[in-house]
């Protein structure tokens, strides 16, 4: 059990590439932190620096109250679960679990007790004498978890541990990891590129982009108050709609709007000027017929292109503007696309012209140049 704190941590590779650009954060004891971001955002590098597998170019990493910058991975009191599990193929499951304890000179009966206990928790008791090769993906994943928990470390580090599993097993293991972490109460840092995994597991999310932190916060507040267009488009599926507009006298106009196209938008109370991006989540659009637009709401007319049913609901892909010339057969490629959640019963045809509104408090204004959220 320990806190982990990062202070201006940087990673600069020999070629001069800066993979991690001054990351600072404090992880509380027992907290489940998820580092999430697209590939190449530095999340794995950051995790490997905490583990000690990657040298720290600048800054300080503390585990507990010990600065671990120059401490070997073995002595940092952490355990890591790798993406490919990294099970020792020539050892039985039992020996895989016992290896780390033997290296630390734990007495034999204590090793046996801990391995049996971990096997019981993870329900792998029946496979202890098998080699990893004889296990399924899910079972290997459990053994990898077991190897981490027998050590009873101060922190667990997970490097995309579920990405090699099939979709169903991934959901199951996700729940199990969360349950396990809560019952053990061990501080955990979990790296993933899957925003859904990140949302469901995290006590706090850390969204990384280009080696820097975009936003830290609990999953719901990150979802509801994204700090930038990057976070807005990364968290949530389908992604938040981002509509570039200019505002004049309380009316938003599409940047790409042509004279012939007519107004597709009206909306929010922002200072006059160009250079806004308005973000609206697909589920926050309401048909204009059901909800008259209040001042400050965003209303827009769209031409449907595709209806994508996913079962419980459907997603309507559309282009902004009720341009009859496009007539639905040829999408107006200049106009921005939007995704709108509609009830599963909706039966929209391509080319239909529809009107939607989004309530003022569901519109996220961003500065187009910096991508940062504009506080309201």
């Amino acid at each position, binding site marked *: 059990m320990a806190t982990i704190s990062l202070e201006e941590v940087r990673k600069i590779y020999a070629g001069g590439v800066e993979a991690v650009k001054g990351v600072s954060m404090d992880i509380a004891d027992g907290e489940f932190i998820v580092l999430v971001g697209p590939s190449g955002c530095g999340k794995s590098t950051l995790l490997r620096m905490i*583990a*000690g*597998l990657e040298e720290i170019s600048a800054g300080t990493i503390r585990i507990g109250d010990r600065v671990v910058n120059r401490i*070997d*991975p*073995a002595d940092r009191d*952490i*355990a*890591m679960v*790798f*993406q*490919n599990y*990294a099970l*020792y*193929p*020539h050892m039985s499951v039992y020996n895989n679990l016992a*290896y*780390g304890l033997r*290296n*630390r000179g734990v007495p034999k009966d204590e090793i046996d007790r801990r391995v049996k206990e971990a096997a019981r928790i993870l329900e792998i008791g029946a496979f202890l004498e098998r*080699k*990893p*090769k004889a296990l399924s993906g899910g079972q290997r994943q459990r053994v990898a978890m077991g*190897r981490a928990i027998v*050590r009873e470390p101060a922190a667990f580090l997970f490097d995309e541990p579920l990405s090699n599993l099939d979709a169903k097993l991934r959901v199951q293991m996700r729940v199990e990891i969360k349950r396990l972490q809560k019952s053990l109460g061990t501080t955990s840092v979990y790296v993933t590129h899957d925003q859904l995994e990140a949302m469901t597991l995290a006590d706090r999310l850390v969204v990384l982009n280009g080696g820097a932190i975009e936003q830290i916060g609990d999953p719901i507040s990150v979802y509801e108050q994204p700090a930038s267009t990057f976070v807005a488009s990364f968290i949530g599926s389908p992604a938040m709609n981002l509509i570039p507009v200019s505002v004049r006298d309380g009316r938003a106009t599409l940047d790409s709007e042509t004279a012939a196209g007519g107004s597709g938008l009206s909306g929010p109370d922002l200072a006059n000027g160009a250079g806004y991006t308005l973000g609206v989540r697909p589920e926050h659009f309401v048909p204009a017929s059901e909800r008259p637009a209040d001042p400050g709401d965003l209303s827009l007319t769209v031409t449907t292109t595709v209806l994508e049913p996913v079962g419980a609901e459907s997603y309507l892909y559309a282009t902004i503007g009720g341009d009859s010339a496009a007539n639905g057969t040829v999408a107006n490629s200049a106009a921005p696309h939007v995704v709108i959640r509609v009830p599963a019963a909706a039966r929209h045809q391509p080319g239909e012209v529809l009107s939607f509104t989004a309530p003022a408090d569901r519109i996220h204004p961003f500065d187009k140049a910096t991508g940062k959220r504009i506080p309201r």
Partner: protein
Amino acid sequence: MQTKRTIFPNKVLPYFLLAPQLVITGIFFFWPAGQAIWQSFLREDAFGFKTTFVWLANYTALFEDPNYLNSLQVTLVFSVCVAALSLGLALLLAVCVDRLIKGASGYTTLLLWPYAVAPAIAGVLWWFLFNPTIGILPFIMERLGYNWDHALNSTDAMILVVVAASWKQISYNFIFFLAGLQSIPLSLREAAAIDGAGPFKRFFTITLPLLSPTSFFLMVVNVVYAMFDTFGIIHATTEGGPAQSTNILVYKVYADGFIGLNLGSSAAQSVILMGIVILLTFVQFRYVERRVAY
């Protein structure tokens, strides 16, 4: 493993396509091998005037001959030393190169060159280096107080041929070990590092066991090499001497047959060698696939 099969509609064509390989194997292997077996039952005088069929007399004579038994022992010592030295050094070099990020391909290329050197040339090279009169190594050793002379000292002679034979084989072993090392996922070693194993412990408990298929394969290949392909090295350096101390089986076949003109005994020896090759090949095919550590 599922392999793609082609069915030939024509009955003759497959044999025709196989013919070149079969002809070569027949002419260059089965025919001389058959001759050797036949010859091993014969006793012939040095000039080829009279040939007598003597059943197994050549074989029984061999196993009563202290020189032959000595040669067996020399071969054993030689093969084990060559295999151990060349495998050990190759593994050491491969581990070093595996850690390199920059310049690894340069080292690899340079380390491969000795393999391209013909055995006889390798022999001559080391013969020069170790020459008691003009060689640089005996000169240095003399300064250090050791009087090197492989023409008189059996141990010196054995060391010379072992070094020369190993030097050439290191390249071959090196490239296999390097490939083997690079196929071990880095995350395994990282996991072991987090599990508290130091570099040496990691090497002996993770890397080496995972290399065991490669090591076993190379061990068989090296023993075969030391026993059969080192003729040129022996011939160019010690010629089996001094006092039979480097007279390995292959060299003795040549020496007894072509120098001593005892063709029957020489043939019997090569039949025994053939048996050893068959045994080693069998071991290789039987266990190299199976004795995989995981």
